[in-house]
């Protein structure tokens, strides 16, 4: 069913049932995924999906429903279900179907195109061959995968607001498994393309990363100077990003409640939320509520400048929405990252002198509590000895409190390492040095 027809059917059902204020959020997606094992394409998948999400205001409350089953009866039922749902809502939120922002920025990412299946297969097979060829320590179980996806989004509401966006990405990764001296280790590397230098480097990077972990020892429990790689610090930032939600703060579920304008981090820490980061494949000029997005400093030189707001929370607190609203209430960040500092990674090692370099953290979904800020996560990495990266270490746990960590950042490296997009959200961070962190080992 075409969007035009869906729109007409839903608008017709709204009219029939006396629904005046409503919004339709329609998304269609395509994806292709080619996976290899043992130098063969082991799995190949392609998909197309479509979903229409509906919401409407009934007696001052917002009701929600969605469907991916497109027929006339279902689309009418979609409206009725949202109406019923709105009737049991008790909160005193002021809900809004948005009339539209004055202007919307233009996304700078090129129009996304799906890559041919044959190209993806070729890329995955070549990566697989290069990975096996790179070292005879590479064993079966080693995978290389190439992916391509494309999403189109259409927002339409009863004020006549119409917005659309197209995003997509093509990329590949190598998950290398090596066996050396009877020990197996794995390592994963990703590139946001299927051509070029970064892709050519993947096999070596993936294999060397895995080999580096062989022969890891355990370290005694104690306080260490810790350098956290940007790839891991961005995961920690991601785990605690719900703290930056104004809605969570309002509900007493964030320790950043009432801290706007206050110092919450070391002077060198600036955290930016940017919906249009140059080179990011998933830019957006409007949020789920139809509000124009914009770039802002969330933390500037250690001071919390603003939390992230949706329309309803902004109205409740007398603020303005920051264009981060999501369907169902609450917010999501876009390119949310700690900005780069001045040091090279090597300089961070020499500043640490002796300590631990963390290159992997696991189980953040379990070991990090965004309400309290506490985290305690299993990690792997390397010793830092005499200011240099030394032998691998494993099975230790770094623990602390995220908000204390932000205050204790001693130095930042000069490169922000951005992660893989999840929806419109990408986290980033430079490498950081923190002194005297608790590390639990043997």
């Amino acid at each position, binding site marked *: 069913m075409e969007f035009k027809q869906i729109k007409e059917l839903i608008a017709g059902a709204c009219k029939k049932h006396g629904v005046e204020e409503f919004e339709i959020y329609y998304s269609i997606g395509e994806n292709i995924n080619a996976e290899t094992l043992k130098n063969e394409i082991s799995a190949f998948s392609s998909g197309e999906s479509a979903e229409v999400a509906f919401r409407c205001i009934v007696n001052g409350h917002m009701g929600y429903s969605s469907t991916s*089953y497109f027929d006339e009866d279902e689309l009418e039922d979609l409206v009725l279900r*949202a109406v019923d*749902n709105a009737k049991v809502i008790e909160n005193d939120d002021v809900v809004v179907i948005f009339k539209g922002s004055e202007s919307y920025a233009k996304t700078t990412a090129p129009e996304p195109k799906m890559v041919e299946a044959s190209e993806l297969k070729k890329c995955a097979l070549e990566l697989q061959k290069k990975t096996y060829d790179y070292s005879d320590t590479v064993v079966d179980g080693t995978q290389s995968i190439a992916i391509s996806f494309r999403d189109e989004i259409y927002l339409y509401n009863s004020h006549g607001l119409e917005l659309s966006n197209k995003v997509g990405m093509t990329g590949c990764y190598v998950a290398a*498994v090596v066996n050396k001296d009877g020990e197996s280790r794995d390592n994963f590397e990703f590139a946001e393309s299927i051509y070029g230098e970064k892709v050519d480097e993947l096999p070596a990077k993936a294999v060397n990363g895995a080999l580096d972990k062989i022969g890891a020892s355990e370290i005694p429990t104690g306080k260490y100077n810790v350098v956290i790689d940007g790839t891991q610090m961005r995961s920690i930032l991601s785990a605690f990003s719900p703290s930056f939600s104004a809605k969570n703060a309002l509900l007493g579920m964030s320790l950043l409640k009432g801290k706007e304008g206050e110092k919450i981090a070391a002077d060198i820490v600036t955290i930016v939320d940017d919906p249009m980061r140059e080179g990011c494949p998933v830019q957006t000029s409007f949020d789920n509520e139809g509000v124009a997005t914009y770039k802002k400093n969330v933390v500037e030189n250690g001071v919390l400048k603003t939390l992230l707001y949706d329309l309803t929370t902004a109205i409740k607190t007398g603020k303005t929405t920051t264009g981060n609203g999501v369907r169902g209430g609450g917010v999501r960040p876009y390119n949310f990252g700690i900005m780069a500092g001045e040091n090279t990674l090597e300089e961070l090692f020499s500043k640490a002198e002796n300590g631990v370099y963390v290159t992997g953290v696991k*189980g953040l979904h379990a070991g990090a509590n965004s309400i*309290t800020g506490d985290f305690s996560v299993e990690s792997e990495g390397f010793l830092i000895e005499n200011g240099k990266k030394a032998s691998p270490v494993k*099975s230790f*746990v770094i623990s602390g409190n995220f908000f204390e960590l932000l205050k204790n950042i001693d130095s930042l490296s000069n490169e922000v390492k951005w992660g893989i997009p999840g929806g419109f959200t990408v986290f980033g961070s430079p490498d950081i040095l923190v002194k005297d962190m608790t590390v639990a080992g043997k």
Partner: protein
Amino acid sequence: MISRILLEDVLAAAMSTGADFAEVYAEKTRNNGMRFLDGKIDTVSDDMVSGVGIRAFIGTRTVYATTTDLSRAGLIRCAKAVADALGESKLQVSINLTERIFPNIHPVKILPGSSLLTTRTDILKDACFAAKETDEKIKQVMGNLTSVDHTILVANSEGLYTSDRHVRTRIAVSAVASDGHENQSGSCSPGRGMGLEMFDFINPREVGKVAADQALVNLRADYCPAGQMTVAIENGFGGVIFHEACGHSLEATSVGTGTSQMCGKLGQKIANEKVTAIDDGTIPGAWGSVNIDDEGTPTQRNVLIENGILKSYMIDRLGSRRMNMAMTGNGRRQGFMFEPTSRMTNTFIANGNDKNEDIIKSIEYGLYAKSMGGGSVNPLTGEFNFGVSEGYIVRNGEICEPVRGASLVGTGSQILMDIDMVGQNLATAQGMCGSSSGSVPTDVGQPLIRVSKITVGGRR
């Protein structure tokens, strides 16, 4: 959902370039959600998911394609996309499907979707108000009541044509306690493979109270000391230790590709002889139970480990081809967007011979992990990590002061050997397990167990 004749044509189209097996999976799923926040019903959602996934094999090579277009043209296009990606030969294939009806051992009494919305708001409010009323330090309560009504259809080139309906309900309450300086949280989230009759067995007020009590305990707890110690892990969600440390390594997903530490270990001793572990998708009304898996194979009771000896893996259709072993009814997926793979159902350590009080008495100094949080594992190395959401120090055989912020870290192979006492109060708890085939409901479980030595991550 889709007629038998159309399915036969779709399968034939998927097989037309030389596939030796093809399968159509269709789902229609109604997800109902209700959220309580800040003293009030906050959001109600009602989402319908509908779509089809078509898969074909040549040997262990698979192609999978999905669509939400259920018209004849849409389905044939999807099947042709599968065929084109799989092979180049041109074959005329004809498929004959015979409908098969498997017995329903999880009948549902009260379908959540057809009950009054106010019946559901009452249940959720009962639970949340009970949490709030526990203590004035409870500053915030969040509750979710969710139900899933999931109908699947599976048809394949072996002639199978069957469907199943799986209903599940879950209530989750999390409470935040605050003393004005800091916040601590607690949660409780039971679920069943049932409709609203689940609340004949589970009192919503009790759920709220458990969440609130846990938050209050954590508020008065000091940070957990770090280091290696003896740990007693309580029943219920404590079973996450087995799920993470061992269960994932026994899935064909990792065994069949040679990336599991458990490869080639059938018949070998992999755990302390006190350990017997079972995966059982047939327990009536349990959270992880289904009549048939998402490949149309009936679920069964699989003894994974018996007295420390590895007896069985959990095997889906592709894994069965890779490993040349029979399927075990573990081929699962979240829905049509995901290709199925081997997953756990209800997985638990069976009761042992040790008395629970003896387990605590045996610990001179250690940790009693009363309630566990989630965790993750690397199936290649068996390294795992999971959080303790309510813990106490044990001193001279007695449970003493509460501690917070602890996590347990180790490797699967080691901890299985180090489970040296197994108690007698087996209970299960519910989780959503995430893997390559999406998020599926699984039960974890165990009685109280003792691990002689494990790394505890803490802040002191």
